[in-house]
């Protein structure tokens, strides 16, 4: 079988059916998706099969392309934040922060300590929520349905925290250039504390359900291997890269928003398979909880926004007695601010991998170009490498393990 496979690889047929020699045509091309429930959205994978062995897996994307990057060019910097929510809809806070940090880099500003730490806390809450959705759907794909309910129970508590502070569950747009749109409401930290205290029990439960389960291990151990070189060559980042044993976490490598003051470690894998990615993400959840806990303990007092009235609108109570404040307020909400001419890219660690916005400013109030480095898009490139030579059922496990969000891939 191995020799036959190699022959097929060298003498490969085009998945689109070009140059097919009828006598050599022993493979079958089948279509997985875009409506397949385990493709996490609308991903279409064209699989070339030899029996049940995969010769090639070609992801076809673009089914949810909505031109978000283009529409950002027509919004002022502040309004463009709302577009970023809708890219990776499972980690909205982190997308907001990615755009915001890049704009702040252009402007040369940084919010005060409380603003920064509140951002870190929101981002870690979002990372936990995203990882919980990942484990829920990944296990649902592999046939472990119970995990879904327990993971979503916990996620609900995290979304409640987001709703308390921002007013919505999934599209907060709460992190904006200059700081945040509002401070934490009364009782928010208590709720967060309550969650942090109760979460280990639930997380242990999830681990106990899966990590030793023979069926889960059979489906995941040794599946979807990718070497370190291939990972680096394809630009894979995030948990998938760390599962291959590469110690690269942007939070540690290039700390942003004051991540350097937190005490956490970067979990690494060893075998670079689906099971290792599961283990790495589970360990990351423990670390995220740790960071949230430290945030609650260390949260400094003070302002959350910078005091520059040319970038952040004045507080509402100033509007009643200061004409200047009213002028700034009107100017900011209609025209916005003008960053200096230049370009900027600030990498962040999203639940999927390295995220960042490359923003080109031409000195006007709108980005000349806003391009996102989508971690899911880069990671999806590795799908073919991970699947070749494996069984068809493993594709489902691999797609689940690289944790893609199609909204981010197609944008």
């Amino acid at each position, binding site marked *: 079988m191995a020799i036959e496979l190699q022959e097929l690889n060298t003498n490969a047929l085009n998945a689109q059916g070009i140059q097919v020699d009828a006598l050599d045509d022993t493979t079958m091309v089948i279509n997985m998706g875009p409506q397949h429930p385990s493709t996490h959205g609308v991903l279409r994978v064209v699989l070339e099969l030899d029996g049940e062995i995969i010769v090639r897996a070609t992801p076809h994307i673009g089914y949810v392309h909505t031109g978000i990057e283009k529409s950002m060019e027509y919004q002022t910097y502040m*309004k463009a934040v709302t577009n970023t929510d809708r890219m990776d809809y499972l980690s909205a806070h982190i997308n907001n922060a990615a755009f915001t940090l890049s704009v702040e880099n252009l402007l040369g500003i940084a919010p005060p300590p409380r603003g920064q730490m509140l951002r870190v806390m929101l981002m870690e809450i979002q990372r936990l929520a995203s990882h919980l959705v990942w484990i829920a759907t990944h296990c649902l794909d592999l046939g472990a349905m119970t995990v879904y309910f327990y993971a979503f129970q916990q996620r609900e508590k995290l979304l409640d925290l987001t709703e308390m502070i921002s*007013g919505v569950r999934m599209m907060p*747009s709460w992190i904006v250039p200059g700081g945040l749109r509002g401070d934490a*409401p009364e009782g928010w930290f208590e709720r967060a504390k309550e969650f942090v205290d109760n979460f280990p029990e639930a997380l242990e439960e999830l681990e*106990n*359900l899966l990590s*030793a389960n023979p069926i889960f291990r059979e489906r995941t151990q040794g599946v979807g291997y990718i070497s370190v070189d291939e990972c680096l060559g394809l630009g894979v980042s995030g948990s998938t890269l760390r599962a291959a044993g590469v110690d690269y976490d942007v939070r540690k490598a290039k700390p942003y928003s004051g991540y350097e003051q937190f005490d956490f470690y970067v979990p690494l894998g060893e075998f670079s398979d689906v099971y290792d990615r599961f283990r790495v993400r589970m360990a990351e959840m423990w670390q995220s909880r740790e960071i949230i806990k430290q945030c609650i303990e260390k949260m400094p007092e003070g302002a959350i926004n910078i005091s520059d009235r040319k970038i952040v609108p004045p507080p*509402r109570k100033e509007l009643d007695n200061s004409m200047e404040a009213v002028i700034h307020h009107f100017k900011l*909400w209609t025209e916005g601010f003008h960053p200096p001419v230049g370009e900027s890219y600030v990498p962040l660690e999203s639940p999927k991998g390295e995220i960042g916005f490359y923003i080109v400013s031409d000195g006007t109030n709108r980005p000349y170009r806003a391009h996102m480095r989508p971690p899911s898009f880069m990671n999806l490139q590795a799908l073919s490498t991970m699947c070749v030579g494996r069984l068809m059922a493993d594709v489902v496990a691999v797609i689940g393990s690289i944790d893609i969000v199609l909204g981010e891939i197609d944008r």
Partner: protein
Amino acid sequence: MSLGTFLKSTIDGANALRTGFGITFRHYAEQQLKTKPVDTIQYPEERREQYPRTRWRHVLTRYDNGLEKCIGCSLCAGACPARCIYVQAAENTDEQRFSPGERYAAKYEINMLRCIFCGFCQDACPTGAIVLRKDFELSDYTREDFLYTKEMFLEAAPMETMIPASTIGAMNRENAAK
């Protein structure tokens, strides 16, 4: 596979399954004996807790004396990333006074199909007239029904105030005819 490894893997597997099913059955028992609160909500009868900042359907608020807070400045329309707000201002007269300032919103329309509930209108409004409140059940049958007008947004006036909402509607229609 030797007998030793076979036995070991069988025992390990059985143990893991026991742990897993143990968790599932414990949850089942907790639900049945009601020792833990149930997380699911029977939706139309029961409602989720909503928080003070909840951003849903817009409301145009009034002052305590019944005057509208909206002064028709269109800043909400300017701040809207989805460009779904339309405001047409008109002058207040001494006979017909809607808001304390010089102008009021003769027309205030939001296309709720375009609205993304980002809350920027609420943040931008200099008088705090437009606020996003908790009414989230916004489904309807036709696209036209989603073009919400001022009468639909306007908060009910206090009992003792001067202008009944119907007059405002009539006034709006007059303005539209002009």
